[in-house]
């Protein structure tokens, strides 16, 4: 086993930070670490926190961390912000609102740029969750901007998704109801002391009611909460809801099933990439040239490219 993997398993902060850097940079050493720590993952409760810019997500995450620490749990935070598609640069400022946890050894905060991925997450976000999981963080919070259907990736990644809304952003709510509002196990109206709270609440209650009409018996019933994160209000209720959802996931077997589905998705994505690049490095290269020259149609080319694989699969 490599030194970094062993140190990650021992919970060493610098090693975990380095492993995440490798994964983020697509350095092959990152994947080597993942292979070695994999057996120690699958324990952490991954909580997604998403909502429009200005909803107070970072402040709410800060409150969440405080409440989790009060319960003695170790917490990892991945704060994902957009990378500029023009320059590849990013300004990642979510730590600013989490300053009070800077010296708490039970809290690990990492800022990540989306690095060219759409959907509000970077390619390495889930891998970073695995690293924090292997380091022994019991709760991993992934914070990301989300305003519509594109940002639904967080729902696939997290066990529990918390959608943050705010009063008075009528248009945003309209945009969200088309996408994110269909998902999310917990909805929080932050800045609930603001004008328009009652209206937003009624609106979200209606949405949840409509969502509920197709819910199978025994399925999780989404919760609607209120918070004023800057004053520390609503944190205990939020943790209670998260814990209730975690208990639901465990009792229903959904926690293990989700982990299996995520593994499956990763396996398929990796296998797809590996198969394709292996094929294209070999017999596929001239075929690709023909496709570019339009001297063969793409459908026949794909058939030809994969014919040996299918023949092999039939034999075995």
């Amino acid at each position, binding site marked *: 086993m490599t030194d970094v993997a062993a140190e990650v398993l021992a919970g060493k902060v610098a090693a975990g930070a380095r492993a995440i850097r490798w994964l983020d940079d697509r350095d092959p050493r990152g994947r080597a670490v993942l292979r070695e720590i994999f057996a120690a993952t699958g324990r952490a409760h991954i909580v997604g926190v998403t909502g429009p810019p200005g909803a107070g997500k970072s402040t709410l995450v800060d409150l969440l961390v405080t409440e989790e620490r009060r319960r003695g749990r170790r917490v990892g935070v991945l704060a994902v912000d957009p990378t500029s598609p023009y320059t590849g*640069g990013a300004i*990642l400022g979510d730590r600013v609102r989490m300053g009070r946890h800077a010296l708490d050894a039970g809290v690990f*905060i990492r*800022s990540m740029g989306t*690095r060219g991925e759409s959907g509000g997450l970077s390619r390495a976000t889930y891998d970073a969750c695995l690293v924090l999981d292997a380091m022994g963080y019991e709760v991993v919070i992934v914070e990301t901007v989300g305003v519509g259907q594109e940002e639904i990736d967080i729902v696939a990644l997290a066990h529990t998704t918390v959608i943050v809304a705010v009063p008075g952003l009528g248009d945003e709510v309209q945009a969200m109801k088309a996408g994110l509002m269909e998902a999310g196990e917990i909805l929080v109206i932050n800045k609930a002391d603001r004008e328009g709270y009652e209206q937003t609440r009624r609106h979200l209650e209606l949405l949840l009611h409509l969502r509920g009409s197709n819910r199978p018996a025994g399925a999780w019933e989404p919760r609607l909460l209120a918070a004023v994160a800057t004053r520390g209000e609503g944190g205990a209720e939020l943790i209670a809801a998260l814990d209730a959802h975690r208990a639901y996931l465990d009792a229903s077997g959904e926690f293990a099933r989700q982990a299996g589905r995520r593994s499956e998705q990763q396996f398929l994505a990796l296998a797809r990439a590996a198969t394709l690049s292996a094929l294209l490095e070999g017999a596929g290269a001239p075929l690709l040239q023909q496709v570019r020259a339009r001297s063969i149609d793409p459908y026949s080319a794909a058939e030809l490219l994969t014919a040996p694989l299918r023949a092999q699969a039939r034999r075995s």
Partner: protein
Amino acid sequence: MKAVSPVSVRPLRVLLAKLGMDTHTVGITVVAHALREAGMEVIFTGLKQTPEAVASAAIQEDVDVVGISSLSAGHTRSLPRLARLLREQGSGEKLLVAGGVIPQEDLPLLHEAGFARIFTMGTDTREIVAYLREWWAQRLAAEAHKQ
């Protein structure tokens, strides 16, 4: 394995912070935007940070560069302290730079403490970008040589 691994991409990661009670943010904000435009990932930790908090953040974020903006007194103590904390925690390989209102007579002490470069008032952001790029190119070349 090579076929599976997508191309490695390694943007420079820079932590920008302010130590002490100073709350002047114009300079650090301008620098942050210049670095972002240059394709770097800039991590902000906010105002009124202690050297301990900045060192901890730099390690968790695994940045390559730590840049401190100082526009009030106190840098002759807090900056060397930050450098020492990073070394003690095994992160002495990070590039340390500072900028702001720092008198000429303090420069030797800060260099001695481990700050490679001090950008005094009025430095063009292009100079900062060029310096960091040059350092990064050398660092990457040195790592490639080692492997």
